[in-house]
């Protein structure tokens, strides 16, 4: 690839905010209209006449906060415990489903469906993966979308040799389609050449509202713990309109609550992948810190903060070198702070800390606002806690006074 073409492609990866900012033909006018709309919304919120704040339109699922999961502290239980798992399979002591995980869950297949399909499936095989047919519903997918074969050059169309047994049981592995040039080309369909975590990317477990997303980086042997249960995982191939099912085993991840994440091993595969619950909803700040194993797992990246100086100049700054101890001291000291995501107002002058949980293959942000909120955008869910304006101010002061300045420049324009 030529250098200019590479640069052109690299330019495609600029920050989303910059892309959206320029998306509107009259961006400046749009910006002012947005500001006016934001002010109007704030006024409406203040006087309380709105039909409903934005967060009520899609409230996060409410999951009671479990007490610390003792099973996760049991250390590295061996796989040999698989046959005696029933006493260790409680999903927290206050599970909203009101039930413990039992052998019943082994028959609870997931219902991942694709366009034009409804819930699934009649298992027709006793192989590692079973193929099932799907039933049409009256819902109509948009034209030219889901039933279309991938075009040459897309990731979906790449062909690799799969080591998993499911690739041998799919209906067909190749198809023909016409390219824009009018020629007929044969390409390998996504299903046969795609990694197992991509064809079975999600599963439900224990309650309909618990959906786990499987991450792509396998866990090391030290990271997964006791066996939990067997499940069936379903994946949908939109190209052949076929639903596939595979058996899998779930395990605890050491130091992590099973409501937040578990490890999954697909039948016929040797790797253990982390899977995070996108409906994870801790009721307290301490619950989140404990369930996700912040103390041992959290990695802290750089911190971004836009602020105004005494002359009212807007600065854009980035800092580095924040330790977990200091972050915990300023932000996590009151573990009983309730999760108030559904009540969170706008975040005033937020400072954003990049964080990651390498064990769970998760990257996210902890945002602290001057009006005293800590928002965690992590594990594919968002949670917010009111920590108080004083704690937030102390944290921001600490970052500015003690962390390493990566850059700090006055923003021009606008």
């Amino acid at each position: 690839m030529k250098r200019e073409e590479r640069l052109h492609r690299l330019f495609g990866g600029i920050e989303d905010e910059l892309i959206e900012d320029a998306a509107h033909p009259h961006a400046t006018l749009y910006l002012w209209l947005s500001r006016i709309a934001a002010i109007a919304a704030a006024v409406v919120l203040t006087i309380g006449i709105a039909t409903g704040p934005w967060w009520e339109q899609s409230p996060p699922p409410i999951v009671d906060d479990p007490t610390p999961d003792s099973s996760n502290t049991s250390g590295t239980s061996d796989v040999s415990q698989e046959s005696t798992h029933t006493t260790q399979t409680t999903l927290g002591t206050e599970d909203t489903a009101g039930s413990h995980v039992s052998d019943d869950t082994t028959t609870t297949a997931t219902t991942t469906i694709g366009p034009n399909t409804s819930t699934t499936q009649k298992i027709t095989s006793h192989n590692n993966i079973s193929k099932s047919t799907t039933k049409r519903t009256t819902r109509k997918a948009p034209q030219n979308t889901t039933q279309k074969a991938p075009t040459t050059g897309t990731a979906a169309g790449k062909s690799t040799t799969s080591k998993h047994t499911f690739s041998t049981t799919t209906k067909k592995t190749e198809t023909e389609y016409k390219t824009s040039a009018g020629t007929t080309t044969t390409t390998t369909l996504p299903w046969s050449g795609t990694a197992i975590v991509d064809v079975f990317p999600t599963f439900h477990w224990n309650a309909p509202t618990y959906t786990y997303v499987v991450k792509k980086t396998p866990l090391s042997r030290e990271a997964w713990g006791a066996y939990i249960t067997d499940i069936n995982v379903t994946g949908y191939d939109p190209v052949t309109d076929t639903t596939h099912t595979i058996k899998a085993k779930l395990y605890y991840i050491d130091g992590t609550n099973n409501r937040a994440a578990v490890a999954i091993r697909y039948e016929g595969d040797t790797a253990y992948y982390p899977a995070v619950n996108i409906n994870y909803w801790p009721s307290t700040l301490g619950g989140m810190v404990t369930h996700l194993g912040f103390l041992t797992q959290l990695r802290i990246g750089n911190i971004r903060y836009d602020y105004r100086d005494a002359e009212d100049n807007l600065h854009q700054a980035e800092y580095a070198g924040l330790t977990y101890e200091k972050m915990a001291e300023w932000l996590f000291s009151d573990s009983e702070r309730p999760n108030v995501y559904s009540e969170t107002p706008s975040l005033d002058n937020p400072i954003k800390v990049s964080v990651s949980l390498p064990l769970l293959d998760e990257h996210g942000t902890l945002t602290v606002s001057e009006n005293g909120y800590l928002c965690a955008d992590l594990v594919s869910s968002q949670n917010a806690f009111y920590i108080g304006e004083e704690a937030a101010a102390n944290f921001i002061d600490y970052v500015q006074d003690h962390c390493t300045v990566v850059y700090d420049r006055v923003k021009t324009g606008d």
Partner: protein
Amino acid sequence: MGMDDHRIVALYWERDPRALAETQQKYSGYLHRITHNILQNEQDAQECVNDTYLRAWNAIPPHRPQRLCAFLGKIARHLALDRYTANTAQKRGGGTTATLLEEWRDCLPDTAGQVEDEVAIQETISRFLRGLSAQHRRLFVRRYWYGDSINDLVATFGGSESRIKTQLLRTRQELKEFLEKENISV
């Protein structure tokens, strides 16, 4: 106005086909503009838009894009550039994108830097853009991300054609200096 983006993303996560319908209703024009600017071919552009929907369906979950507009736009742009490369190999390229690539040469660092990581380079470019005035930044992004023609830019931002070209040239030179200063290798 279409459905709120967060609700559309939620439909994807629920594997609800309405996600695709809502995406198409809200963003088909936006995506078509991106792909058509690159490809200058109606059929190719529409196929890339359709592929974008399929890609989005396969990517969400596990992704949960915070900005669906940019997320879809990036997919469409990437697919269109792939198609453009293939078309160029078959001598069907040319047009605006060829011109853009020529203009990008002005930004290539003369010196061989040490930073080659794509994410780091993209962050550097973003940082450069944030340092520009809002007007200049939008002009640059409209030209090189969305692939708008000079005539489109004149219509959008006002001024003369020569003024737009001059401003873009200056920004390209600034970017080149910035990349060299940041030790970027392209």
